[in-house]
């Protein structure tokens, strides 16, 4: 059986929703961060599928750039998480409540 465009889009939508609910519901910053990456991957899957079925290359090129940006985002994100852990000894979002009125 050959997967068509709609199958890819459904999969990408599911991945995106999975990532989104993970961001909303999980409490561990690292897991939240993984879910963010899942949302990005969902978009790249949609881009590749569109590019394949449109018969154009620009979607593929876009994905290369997204992967590079995601790598830079990992560097920044993990650096911030490490900096926070050094000060607070925790990565749980519930305990990050020192900023308030």
């Amino acid at each position, binding site marked *: 059986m050959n997967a068509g465009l709609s199958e890819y*889009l459904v999969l990408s939508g599911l991945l*995106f929703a999975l*990532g*989104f609910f993970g*961001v909303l519901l999980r409490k561990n*910053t690292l897991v*939240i*961060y993984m879910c*963010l990456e899942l*949302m*990005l991957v*969902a*978009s*790249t899957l*949609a*881009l590749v*599928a*569109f*590019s394949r079925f*449109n018969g*154009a290359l*620009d*979607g593929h*090129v*876009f994905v290369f*750039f*997204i992967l590079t*940006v995601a790598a*830079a*985002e990992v560097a*920044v*994100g993990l*650096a*911030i*998480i490490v*900096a*926070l852990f*050094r*000060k*607070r000894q925790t990565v749980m979002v519930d305990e*990050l409540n*020192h*900023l308030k*009125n």
Partner: protein
Amino acid sequence: MNIDYSLFFRAMQPESLLIEAALAIIILDLTVMRRKDLSARLNVASLVGALAVALAAVLALRNGAMGEILNGVLNLDTLAVATRVGVLGLTLLVLGIGTGGARIRNPAEYVVIVLCAAVGFMLMASAQQLLLVFLALELASLSLYVLAGFDKSRPESAEAGLKYFLFGGMAAAFLLFGFSLLYGLTGTLDLPGMSVVMAATGFHPMLAVAMVMILVGFGYKAAAAPFHLWAPDAYQGAPAPAAAFIASASKLAGFVLFTRLLWGSASQGQMLGATPGWVPVVWLLAGASMLVGNLAALAQSNVRRLLAYSAIAHAGALLLGVIASGRSGPGPLFFYLTTYGIATAGAFGVFHVLENQGGAQKLKDLAGLHRRSPLLAGCLMVFILSLAGVPPLSGFFGKFAVFAAALSPAGLGSPTGWLAVFAIAMSAVGLYYYLLILKEALVRPAAAGATAVKVPAAAALTLVAAAGLTLIFGMFPSLLLRWF
């Protein structure tokens, strides 16, 4: 296809100059300045950075509106040139208020990241292709996340950085998913080509999904209610110059980009703005932001959080400007963005000087400022009154221009007109909490034992210049508006 690279290099002169200056600053810091103390390193790095930014602004002005570059990947129209210069001016302001504080442990890296963010903002102003839009946005956002968490000596800074990063990352994912759907629908990444295809094919349900995704993404980035939750924490915890940058230049570039996505530029047809249904959504976001921002600001006792909620309220008014700019052009919106950016960055500059002298962020720490430093008190008064929209300061004219643009097509016959009336009513609420700040700074006597505040020379110069600009743009708004 033929690409004119000499044209491209000339158009990119300001951006390249900033990147070269960033490299030069790093090299300088690692060689000549290596053994100097922190404040000397910060001053030298800021000076080199400021010179490069000023030169880049001159180059951007000299090149002027060059039109389409690289087969329309970039479009340097008047709005792009104005935004570039505006971003550079605000960067100069942020660099100026950042000097004199010795709390930053890596001063050269700090200036370099500010310059990188400025490059991102400038590209956002002229990008006409989704790939470039995404890259420019991420360059700017990643730099801002780093800046928000830059002060490693304070746990609040890291917390602010993390919250800003998580919400910003989610916004980026939403935007990207919306972009990929747009690409799938139209088969092209170029905004002008996209608007042609969209005009030909008409409405498609997937377009509505893409639309919602993009609006959610921009809602987060612009801190519009109900996506505003990160803003108070980020504004409170980030180092003051970083918060000033997030509140001013990033707003300017972000809203210009959003307007372009919705309305296209003057030469091309409408973009997403032609899609039915987006105006009510933006309308709701604007109304909710003004309501939530202004009411929540009333309850704040921390000046930075207060400014954050006022920023949410201003985001609502700016969204109203986005709706209005479809008919009246981007002039009023640009004026509002620039003057708001100057005033809010200036206010953060005043707080930065105070915090460096051992003050905290509470409203009552401002008490007696008129005695402790008449200069700071005077500048703060100009900035806060401009934010409140009191004539003859530029904040008043910005509000006036945006509300007039919203009311002029149909008066009260359209929902946009009613939203403008709501915005005017909400400005009156805003006046109350802005005056609370001024009451502390100008009326309340100083606490016992409070000493005079020493203002570093560069920061003083920057603040006076910003206050002067706020006055001048208020009295002669045509200085900015004649560009459009």
